[in-house]
């Protein structure tokens, strides 16, 4: 372990947020050229993390950070090993290209500055997710990616589809984040550590814990929702409502991989159990097949890619679940390959959309001549996606087949799943890369021509990287694949595969895949029609299920609200007082701890008798009062008598406050009474009076018994001794009560006065609604005139 340059890493973690802050200002000044400056931020991050490459390749783990809340063992700390380093490089590297691409893609958009800002915020959050060592930090960053993704999907917020997709993504991934939080808390409880780097030593403890399954399910809830595993996959295709740079960056290359990252991160401690090795492959395999089948159905370039992203994530989850050495190597290679080719393909799709005016694959053709560079970039990405040499996708696919191949039925089933999935992805890859470019030129909404350099720079660079990474595979393995695979496996591991094919089952499976892919590609139109009619026959899908779930939730909460808030004050009061009485009397009855009858004190002074007499007079006055106002004022007599008692028994502060509270309470109650249009006198039916009386008596008896029980306990003087002793010495005040309020427990008081203020605000607005309902509608420009508003706010 070495702690190299902790300051620099912290600055780098904050850099995207700083860039996000200045992005709108910079964009106002420079227009879309601000992209050049803003891209320096991710570039700097990329270079910073490259600096760790040799260290990590030699098996080093770089940790750093600082204490945050030491008493809760919470720290702001990071962990850089093969896994997080690869992710960080992907995030910052692709991020640099995406920022440049966005500048050209959204050129002239009035909200470009905001867009840059959101993108950079996301980048910072995503970087935080993969770098975090502390659980809390991981969770906060995790939710921050959900929120920034929400902002980006809903970027075009004037369209309803965007807003719906944004909310849907937030609900699914944010909800998963809560599951993750619970899972992390469970893990913390089992092991007692809050840092991933320390957690790695507690694998066996975790696996043998009776709460292992709970922790596993909760963590999987977070991972599966984020990484769009079936049946929670539906939010990802809908997220394609976002501008294409967002789809390329968040929804293919980085954010959706956060779930896979989580699984890989926890593989050494949660993995290697029957549950892990069953759930992950089954869900992953299902997602792989469902995703590719749904992708076949689509004609929109982005949607085709989105569904294959779903299936690729499924493949990654499946491989992570197998947990064998080759499976992890395959997952690692495929993850890198997928980020490169899918990010590239999305950018190509956006480029075509940008230059030709449509993304519908059936309306595109013959663009090869008009957009040669785009064509090259698309082909590079598609070849890698199809798993053909000499791209890194080929290495990944060979490794996948190596990993899966065995002759038992369980493995054979997954081999079949992988072959079908890969074959269909082959089809989609080429459908995106070939269909628009070959064939006769089709008239497109815009006359197509090559886009500006900023647009093709990204996909071309990614394509080249995919090629070079495969050609210099020993180098790639040394710095990327092997360290990452070691981190995922939790033990040193070496990845060795190269572009030179080896004879064996893997190669045969590859050939089978390719043949299957070519046949399917020829039949694409039939397959698409078939899938379309199949889906139409099924009708229902998780996407519609989501809507039903949400509307059901709204109905349920409406029903609950109507039940517990009928809008009648007397019901609220009765329930409240009954609860108070039950809470006071219940425990005493349950434990049989009734207080003893108090002894009548002998030395009662005359003036003390007078005070008691006042109390009783006040009580009778309340009961026999003819109208409400008299009753309220008489209630004040009681309060003043109590204040007198406080005074007599040496609590001047309390008494003082009681006087004032009592006065104000009477004044305010009287004022309220003048506004409520009630009868001056109280005429409840006798039955009602009896019922209310028993509630009142129950409360009174409860309080009396409670106070008696409390005062019969021996009085613990620890606190009063402490405050009497230190009030003058430490806090320079002789009024202990006040010193406690403003000094010893000042932070509590701060909270309390905040409550006082907010309550005041709430009461004020309630009064306003009641009185000036017409005025509200009149002077509020945002509200349409609504004369029937009164019916709502009774």
């Amino acid at each position: 372990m070495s702690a190299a340059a902790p300051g620099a890493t912290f600055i780098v973690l904050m850099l995207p947020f700083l860039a996000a802050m200045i992005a709108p200002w910079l964009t106002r000044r420079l227009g879309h050229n601000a992209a050049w400056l803003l891209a320096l931020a991710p570039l700097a991050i990329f270079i910073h993390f490259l600096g760790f490459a040799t260290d990590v390749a030699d098996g080093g783990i770089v940790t750093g950070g600082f204490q945050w809340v030491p008493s809760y063992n919470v720290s702001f700390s990071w962990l850089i090993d093969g896994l997080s380093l690869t992710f960080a490089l992907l995030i910052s590297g692709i991020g640099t290209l995406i920022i440049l691409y966005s500048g050209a893609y959204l050129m002239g958009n009035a909200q470009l500055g905001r867009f840059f800002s959101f993108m950079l915020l996301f980048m910072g959050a995503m970087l935080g997710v993969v770098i975090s060592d502390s659980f809390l930090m991981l969770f906060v960053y995790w939710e921050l990616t959900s929120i920034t993704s929400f902002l980006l999907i809903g970027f075009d917020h004037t369209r309803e589809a965007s807003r719906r997709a944004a909310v849907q993504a937030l609900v699914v991934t944010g909800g998963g984040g809560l599951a993750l939080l619970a899972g992390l808390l469970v893990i913390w409880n089992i092991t007692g550590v809050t840092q991933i780097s320390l957690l790695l030593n507690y694998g066996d403890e975790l696996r043998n814990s009776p709460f292992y399954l709970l922790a596993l399910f909760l963590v999987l809830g977070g991972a599966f929702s984020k990484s769009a595993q079936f049946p929670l996959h539906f939010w990802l295709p809908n997220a394609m409502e976002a501008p294409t740079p967002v789809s390329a960056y968040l929804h293919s290359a980085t954010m959706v991989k956060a779930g896979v990252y989580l699984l890989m991160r926890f593989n050494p401690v949660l993995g290697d159990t029957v549950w892990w090795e069953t759930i992950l492959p089954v869900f992953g395999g299902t997602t792989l097949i469902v995703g590719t089948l749904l992708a076949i159905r689509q004609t929109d370039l982005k949607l085709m890619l989105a569904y294959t992203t779903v299936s690729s994530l499924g493949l990654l989850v499946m491989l992570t679940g197998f947990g064998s050495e080759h499976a992890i190597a395959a997952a690692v290679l495929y993850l890198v390959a997928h980020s490169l080719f899918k990010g590239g393909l999305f950018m190509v799709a956006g480029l075509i959309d940008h230059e030709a005016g449509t993304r519908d694959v059936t309306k595109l053709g013959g663009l090869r001549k008009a957009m040669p560079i785009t064509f090259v970039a698309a082909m590079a990405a598609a070849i890698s996606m199809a798993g053909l040499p000499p791209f890194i996708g080929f290495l990944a696919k060979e490794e996948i087949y190596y990993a899966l191949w065995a002759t038992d039925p369980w493995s054979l089933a997954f081999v079949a799943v992988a072959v079908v999935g890969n074959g269909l992805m082959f089809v989609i890859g080429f459908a995106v890369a070939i269909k628009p470019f070959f064939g006769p030129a089709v008239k497109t909404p815009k006359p197509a021509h090559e886009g500006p350099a900023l647009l093709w720079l990204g996909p071309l660079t990614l394509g080249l990287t995919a090629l070079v990474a495969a050609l210099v595979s020993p180098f790639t393995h040394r710095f990327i694949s092997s360290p990452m695979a070691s981190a995922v496996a939790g033990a040193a591991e070496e990845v060795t595969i190269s572009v030179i094919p080896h004879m064996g089952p893997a190669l045969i499976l590859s050939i089978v895949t390719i043949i299957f892919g070519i046949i399917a590609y020829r039949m694409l139109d039939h397959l698409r029609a078939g899938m379309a009619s199949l889906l139409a026959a099924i009708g229902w899908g998780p996407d519609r299920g989501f809507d039903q779930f949400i509307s059901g939730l709204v109905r349920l909460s409406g029903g609950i609200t109507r039940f517990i808030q009928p809008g009648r004050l007397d019901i609220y009061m009765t329930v409240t007082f009954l609860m108070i009485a039950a809470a006071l009397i219940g425990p005493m009855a349950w434990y049989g701890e009734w207080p003893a009858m108090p002894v009548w004190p002998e030395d009662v002074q005359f003036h003390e008798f007078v005070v008691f007499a006042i109390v009783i007079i006040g009580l009778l006055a309340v009961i026999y009062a003819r109208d409400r106002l008299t009753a309220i004022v008489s209630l004040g007599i009681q309060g003043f008598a109590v204040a007198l008692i406080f005074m007599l028994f040496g609590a001047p502060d309390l008494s003082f406050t009681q006087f004032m509270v009592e006065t104000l309470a009477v004044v305010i109650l009287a004022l309220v009474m003048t506004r409520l249009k009630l009868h001056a006198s109280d005429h409840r039916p006798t039955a009602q009076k009896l019922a209310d009386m028993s509630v009142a008596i129950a409360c009174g008896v409860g309080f009396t018994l409670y106070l008696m029980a409390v005062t019969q306990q021996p009085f613990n003087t620890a606190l009063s001794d402490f405050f009497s002793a230190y009030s003058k010495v430490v806090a320079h005040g002789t009024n202990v009560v006040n010193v406690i309020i403003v000094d010893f427990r000042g932070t509590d008081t701060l909270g309390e006065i905040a409550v006082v203020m907010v309550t005041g605000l709430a009461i004020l607005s309630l009064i306003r609604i009641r009185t000036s309902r017409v005025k509200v509608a009149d002077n509020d420009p945002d509200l349409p005139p609504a004369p029937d508003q009164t019916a709502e706010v009774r």
Partner: protein
Amino acid sequence: MRTVIFRSIAPYLTSLMVLFSIFVLLRGHNEPGGGFIGGLIAASALAIYGIACGVAPVRRAIYFHPMAISAFGLFMSAMAGVLSVFAGVPYMSGLWIYPHLFGVEVALSSVLVFDIGVYLVVVGAIGSIALALEERDRD
């Protein structure tokens, strides 16, 4: 309730009560009193003035919206805690200085600032409720 006597006395009563509330606030650290009780007294003063002479004169007299006073008090209390940052001690540690004003030693503290904040919160919140209840048809 707007009798001539009440209306004539109310301004004096209110001034006295406000004065008294400040007295109670300032002596609170050593004698019975403090920001909370002081705030309640001042709020009742405003309420009495409002009942006697109508709400508009009260609002004119206090100039700011009572809720703004309340919010400023909260801000002041929170900032009183922040002062301790400059002394390098944890949030909300009491800080004391003893300057000599006109030959008299005066004890000033961040705690006092905090208590004044409490006072303002209570005056503002309770006062604005009372005033809002008192006025019938206009804000």
